[in-house]
């Protein structure tokens, strides 16, 4: 292993600016003569806008303009587009309502944007916003899946009958029915996957900056994918061609999926900046984030598993209702379909699977990706069902899983739900986790807990996920309206330092370090001589951004392909300089040598020759040393693993404490183990948050009750234990790095392990089911027989 190369736990390049307070987040940026925007949002879940009176606000000293939906509509501003189309089982397209950045006729959730005030200071903007008088005719609303599904329920959209956006299915229904007909035993479960709010620590922010001299726009925004925002906002909302629109996402303080979407505020500040010919800045406060950032999860499912008498899985049947909120967010429809139901095979050889998904509109914030996006929902459902099957059959939960695992020799494995897994060894990862968790001595710990009056339980979950979100041809066939490749440019500067331009975006993942490690490995240059540039459409040629654990598996491979082009060209230059055949040049440790001789030239000298071509093969080679690669993979990658959780339950209060947590993951080859471990810690904590603490709650009238960090319970430092993590490596077979992705695994595998552990702890109580979050009250009620 090269020092600072592939596999080394290199300390991060980006850390210095963050630990010294020199990071640059969007709210840290101020443009000369900027105005401050305050958005006026609907306080009701559903209503007709009779009148928006902006006169008093406009009259306030320091207010520059107040704009409404009518103003944007008059300018021909388009709606926020949806990036994924789903077709219902009857062949009809999903219902796709318009989504104006500022609502002009009707509001459909608490937080829906109505108007914007622009003022000289934020304080004035806020005061003036209080004076905007909106006259609503309030209408009946539906705040959750149950009320949206009721007979005669109020409609969010008139053309979405029964509030159904689409009614979709996957898998072979008749084969699945046949499997159930021949089954010896069936286990069934009802699952609620609780609605969550991502709560990245940095609230969203956006600055629009129009340059009238050049007729060019710059948008600074807290995005995971600035090129995607440029494409969506430029082409669909504001009709600005790419060469006139630059989107910059500088340091971004966490995303977890909530910063993938194209949001109304991005379009509002960009459009408004031109209207007033001054920069316009908007920063969400946290309360605003709660009612405007896309929410996550929110499924209600019924699942059944058909088994032989020996516990072999024969068939799986799943029926899910998914809440999409009031409008279709950028990737909203893809989450409960392509990213969910295709994962229902899990790590098991279930031969027949059929799933149907009804996606519904409600008068709530739009729902989109949140860490794992669909895959945690699938994994949770399956792993709770398998544990219930173990209990029902009396087969040990580890043994039941092992009996049904897809075996190493089965790969490539075609599942009944569209995906083809390339590689894996699920038992090996599980064995590693079992050993690290000291599972064999659980009984001793159980006794020790009992002596302290605590009920101890252990739970297991063996997940799989599809990452490296790409294959454009597959994604296109499944409804994606864009390609999903990645782009990398390697610019070798004249003195041999390297600037990498990547379409991946780092908002905590550490690309500035891991991508530099790839460069060190490929070119033998010094780690400190490599800089990674990302997050600026004015610098990076193109890119699809970071989500779905795709940066290493797609962006990293694009970078490797560009590096390979650099190596090829460098060899050609070296062959000329050394008067040797190109085929005889070896490139190792930063030196290009003629094989079998002591003649060599340093990479830095090759770079200099490329830019100062005094002695250069101009007849056969262009000067310069810069290469770009677009990479579109052949398949998804399939990280998998085993999570083991131990909890202690206080029987008097129902309080659950996670006392041990172990993860054994297979992420393929690992570029930087320190960073990978950190991703697992964070993901698992979000999963524990979902299992024990987090729940987005609306009341029946559509008011968000968990609208602040005082009401929405995020995991704190004393809510989680230290984590034990290990990895088992089966390299991905279809990318040159052998990497799979690690960003979401923690949030995908952990919730089922936690709930299975609680049910194990309460095994004397005959509790049939327990929904998330397992709050003390919910656990205590279940123990009293009120589950």
């Amino acid at each position, binding site marked *: 292993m090269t020092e600072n190369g592939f596999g080394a736990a290199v300390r991060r390049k980006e850390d210095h600016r963050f630990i*010294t307070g020199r990071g640059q987040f969007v709210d840290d940026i101020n443009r000369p003569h900027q105005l401050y925007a305050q958005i006026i949002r609907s306080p009701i879940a559903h209503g007709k806008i009779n009148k928006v009176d902006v006169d008093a606000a406009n009259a306030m000293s320091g207010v520059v303009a107040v704009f409404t939906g009518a103003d944007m509509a008059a300018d021909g501003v388009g709606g926020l587009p949806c990036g994924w189309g789903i077709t219902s089982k009857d062949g009809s397209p999903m219902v796709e309502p318009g989504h104006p950045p500022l609502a002009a006729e009707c509001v459909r959730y608490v937080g829906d944007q109505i108007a914007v005030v622009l003022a000289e200071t934020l304080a004035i903007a806020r005061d003036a916003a209080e004076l905007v008088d909106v006259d609503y005719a309030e209408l009946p609303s539906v705040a959750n899946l149950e009320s949206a599904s009721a007979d005669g329920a109020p409609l969010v959209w008139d053309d979405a009958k029964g509030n159904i956006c689409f009614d979709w299915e996957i898998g072979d229904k008749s084969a699945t029915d046949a499997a159930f007909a021949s089954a010896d035993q069936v286990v069934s479960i009802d699952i609620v996957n609780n609605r969550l709010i991502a709560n990245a*620590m940095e609230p969203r922010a956006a600055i629009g900056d129009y340059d009238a001299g050049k007729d060019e726009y710059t948008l600074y925004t807290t995005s995971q994918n600035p090129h995607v925002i440029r494409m969506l906002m430029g082409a669909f909302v504001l009709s600005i061609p790419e060469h006139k629109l630059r989107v910059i996402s500088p340091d971004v303080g966490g995303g977890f999926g909530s910063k993938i979407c194209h949001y109304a505020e991005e379009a509002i500040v960009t459009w408004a900046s031109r209207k007033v010919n001054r920069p316009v800045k908007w920063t969400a406060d946290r309360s605003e984030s709660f009612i405007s950032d896309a929410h996550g999860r929110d499924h209600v499912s019924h699942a059944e598993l058909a088994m032989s008498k020996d516990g072999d899985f024969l068939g799986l049947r799943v029926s899910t209702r998914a809440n999409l909120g009031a409008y279709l967010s950028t990737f909203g429809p893809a989450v409960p379909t392509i990213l969910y139901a295709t994962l229902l095979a899990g790590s098991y050889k279930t031969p027949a699977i059929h799933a149907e998904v009804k996606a519904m509109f409600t008068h709530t914030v739009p729902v989109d990706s949140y860490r794992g996006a669909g895959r945690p929902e699938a994994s949770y459902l399956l792993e709770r069902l398998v544990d219930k099957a173990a209990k029902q059959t009396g087969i040990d939960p580890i043994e039941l899983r092992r009996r049904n695992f897809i075996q190493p020799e089965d790969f490539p494995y075609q599942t009944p739900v569209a995906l083809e897994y390339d590689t894996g060894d699920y038992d090996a990862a599980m064995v590693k986790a079992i050993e690290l968790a000291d599972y064999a001595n659980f009984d001793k710990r159980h006794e020790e807990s009992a002596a302290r009056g605590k009920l101890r339980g252990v739970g297991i979950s063996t997940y799989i996920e599809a990452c490296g979100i790409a294959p454009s041809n597959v994604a296109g066939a499944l409804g994606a309206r864009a390609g999903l490749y990645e782009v990398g440019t390697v610019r070798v500067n004249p003195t041999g330092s390297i600037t990498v331009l990547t379409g991946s975006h780092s908002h905590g993942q550490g690309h500035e370090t891991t991508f530099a490690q790839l460069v060190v490995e490929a070119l033998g240059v010094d780690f400190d001589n490599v800089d990674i540039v990302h997050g600026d459409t004015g610098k990076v040629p193109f890119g699809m951004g970071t989500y779905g654990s795709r940066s290493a598996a797609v962006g990293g491979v694009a970078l490797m392909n560009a590096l390979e082009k650099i190596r090829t060209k460098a060899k050609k230059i070296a062959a000329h300089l050394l008067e040797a055949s190109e085929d005889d040049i070896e490139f190792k440790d930063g030196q290009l040598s003629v094989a079998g001789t002591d003649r060599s030239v340093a990479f830095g000298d090759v770079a200099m020759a490329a830019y100062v071509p005094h002695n250069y093969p101009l007849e056969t080679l262009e000067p310069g040393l810069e290469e770009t690669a677009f990479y579109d993979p052949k398949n998804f990658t399939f990280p998998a693993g085993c999570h083991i959780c131990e909890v202690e339950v206080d029987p008097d209060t129902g309080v659950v404490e996670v006392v041990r947590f172990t993860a054994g993951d297979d992420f393929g080859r690992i570029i930087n183990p320190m960073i990978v471990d950190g991703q697992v810690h964070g993901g698992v904590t979000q999963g524990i948050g979902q299992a024990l603490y987090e729940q987005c709650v609306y009341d029946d009238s559509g008011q968000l009750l968990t609208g602040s960090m005082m009401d929405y319970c995020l995991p704190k430092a004393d809510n989680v234990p230290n984590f034990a993590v290990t990895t088992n490596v089966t390299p991905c077979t279809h990318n040159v790095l052998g990497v799979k992705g690690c960003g979401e695994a923690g949030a995908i595998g952990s919730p089922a392990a936690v709930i299975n552990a609680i049910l194990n702890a309460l095994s004397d109580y005959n509790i049939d089911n327990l929904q998330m979050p397992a709050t003390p009250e919910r656990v205590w009620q279940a123990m009293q027989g009120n589950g």
Partner: protein
Amino acid sequence: MSINVSFTLNGEAVSAHVASRTLLVEMIRERFGRTGTHVGCDTSQCGACVIHVDGRSVKSCTMLAAQADGTEIVTIEGVAKNGQLHPMQEAFREHHGLQCGFCTPGMIMSALDLVKQNPDPSEKQIREWLEGNLCRCTGYHNIVRAIKAGADSMRVG
């Protein structure tokens, strides 16, 4: 109403006229351009805005600028001295105690106050101390390790 507020900011005497309702964090960020102190919430939960006022950790989003008149303030920008990172900053880097970096300044400022009060905190004491500092990236595991290591090197140093 505008008032004049003066204090020492990272060793430098500063002064400004601000609206009386101005929060301390706004004054530090907007008037003095020290943007390392962040605003992550509006209910005093997240701790991204923690600074030191007269040597104690304070959530600067929950204090009026006026209340800081005459005090001595240290922000994350004032922790490293003469280009040398403080041992606590080094520990966060060494132990991967940060990912997106948004909560990090508040975490470090909070950790420094903990170590001042308890030079050798246990893991449990560190976790309890961080009650007022939220991180969504790290799962706290490496933050806790970093603070322990930072405290260790501060005792040695």
